[in-house]
């Protein structure tokens, strides 16, 4: 057997990793070269990138098409407010706790909605998000239906001075995006990641080869909920204000996210990255047009779905046989180069 070797990375992926690292260093240094407005925009991009990557993990890999992830965005935001305002926690500590609580609350939710199949599952996720919204609107300590603002002393406790605070908040957004993508990448490269793809292809065979399908999907759901709640906490830490309608907005936290994933390429790690860039490019150039901007977004989504259902990355990948985040296995003969090649 020694004449065969198994490879996972490719030349393109090494180049991509090098470029990715350079880009990361460059972005991490933004507080020294970017203005306040640019940093705010970049933060927003990172947070959307994290949300889109998580939605893609669920829908594109685990087949869990949710239209209710705003439940965890809003939940995370509210938990941050509650824990800092009433628990006296620093926001930096409250963020991981919001993730932990998001995981806990997602467990009973999963038990409930995993009984639903296909479109009913999607509707179920939306109903749950509405229940979350209505519930938080009842909590008068958190401002009820009109919401509340984060007290100034909590905001100022994060770091000394406005510039330091803004840099910190920027790094948190960059950090969560990196953590989310790195976690998804590592997970998809593991045996459980391979199992997700197998389940996507053929549930009958997956079950018959020892994969616990329910458990795999459950883990993906709970981990996605935890990370989504952490992103939600960061989103509302930046906004400083929270209300049920903003926190549980299906438009902001799910519709735009689905748009990003669909145009970028569902079921790939690269897709949400490209989709996020395209989305913000469109938004920054067209947002002044108001309603027309939303119509254009809709048209772009429809055209992509009809002409290239695999999204922009799907087209590029099949044209150039590219893989920036290598998940596959390649067997090569070490002595000669035949036999192992496709």
């Amino acid at each position, binding site marked *: 057997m020694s004449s065969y070797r198994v490879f996972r990375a490719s030349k393109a992926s090494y180049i991509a990793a090098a470029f990715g690292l350079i880009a990361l260093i460059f972005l991490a240094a933004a507080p020294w070269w970017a203005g306040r407005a640019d940093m705010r925009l970049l933060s927003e991009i990172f947070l959307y990138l994290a949300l889109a990557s998580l939605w893609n993990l669920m829908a594109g890999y685990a087949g869990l098409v949710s239209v209710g992830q705003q439940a965890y965005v809003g939940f995370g935001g509210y938990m941050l407010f509650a824990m800092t305002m009433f628990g006296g926690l620093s926001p930096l500590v409250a963020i991981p706790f919001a993730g932990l609580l998001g995981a806990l609350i997602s467990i009973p939710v999963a038990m409930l909605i995993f009984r639903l199949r296909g479109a009913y599952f999607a509707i179920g996720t939306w109903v749950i998000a509405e229940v979350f919204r209505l519930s938080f609107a009842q909590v008068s300590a958190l401002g009820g239906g009109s919401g509340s603002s984060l007290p100034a002393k909590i905001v100022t406790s994060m770091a000394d001075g406005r510039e330091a605070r803004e840099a910190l908040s920027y790094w948190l957004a960059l950090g969560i995006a990196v953590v989310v993508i790195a976690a998804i990448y590592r997970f998809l490269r593991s045996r459980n990641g391979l199992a997700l793809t*197998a389940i996507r292809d053929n549930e009958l065979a997956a079950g018959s080869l020892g994969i616990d399908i329910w458990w795999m999907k459950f883990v993906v759901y709970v981990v996605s909920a935890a990370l989504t709640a952490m992103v939600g906490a960061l989103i509302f830490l930046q906004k400083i204000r929270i209300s049920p309608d903003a926190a549980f907005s299906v438009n902001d936290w799910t519709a735009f996210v689905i748009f990003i994933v669909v145009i970028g390429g569902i079921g790939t790690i690269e897709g949400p990255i490209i989709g996020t860039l395209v989305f913000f490019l469109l938004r920054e150039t067209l947002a002044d047009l108001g309603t027309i901007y939303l119509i254009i977004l809709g048209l772009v989504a429809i055209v992509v779905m009809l002409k290239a259902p695999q999204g922009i990355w799907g087209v590029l990948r099949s044209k150039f046989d590219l893989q920036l985040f290598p998940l596959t296995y390649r067997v090569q003969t070490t002595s000669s180069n035949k036999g192992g090649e496709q």
Partner: protein
Amino acid sequence: MPKILRIAGINKAFGAVIVADNVAFDLEEGTALGVVGPNGAGKTSLFNLITGTLRVDSGEIYFLGSEITKLSAAKRCRQGVARSFQVPQPFVGLTVFENAMIAATHSAGLSGQQAEERCLEVIAQTGLMSKVNVQAGKLTLLDRKRLELTRALCTNPELLLLDEIAGGLTDAECTSLIQTIKDIHATGVSIIWIEHVVHALLAVVDRLIVIDFGRLIADGDPKTIMESREVQEIYLGIDIDA
């Protein structure tokens, strides 16, 4: 020493169609058991019941002495029951190697280099090495059947269920398949093999059962059974020596 498999009076019906009618038999460890019977007799359904793809209406199934009747297909596979599907069920988006890795990492419990080596070993054994990096969705039907055998072997089974894997092979391919299955059997794996290609079956099995309308109608020495009147009647029109 417990029997590798004990089927205790299992029943299964789809509406009016009875696919298992009080089926009962034991399997000694290390046996190669052949299964024959007309189309629609319930042979594949029997495999589905043993592996957990289908649930019995009543009766029990024991694997190595412990009851598995209520376990999921995944758990049964991890305990050592592997099967090939008559209609191949490949993971079409994954390569041959990745298909094998699923079995090795999730059922056999191997990881890292051990898993990779096991997969390469089996792929070489089943004759798929030239397609090792090909996506399973692009394989021909014959190669898909080889992939079924490959994946089942990569689970490191103790009981291997094979469902019509010899159909459509050339003589040379069939001879090599027979040798492969004999090799697997020689390592101590118990085998149950449903096969219409009778000469291939008889070359391997040391016991034969016949199923008709969900009932087990004969059980014993392969040659004696194939020559018996019941089987000759069922197989009227099928050339036994083919």
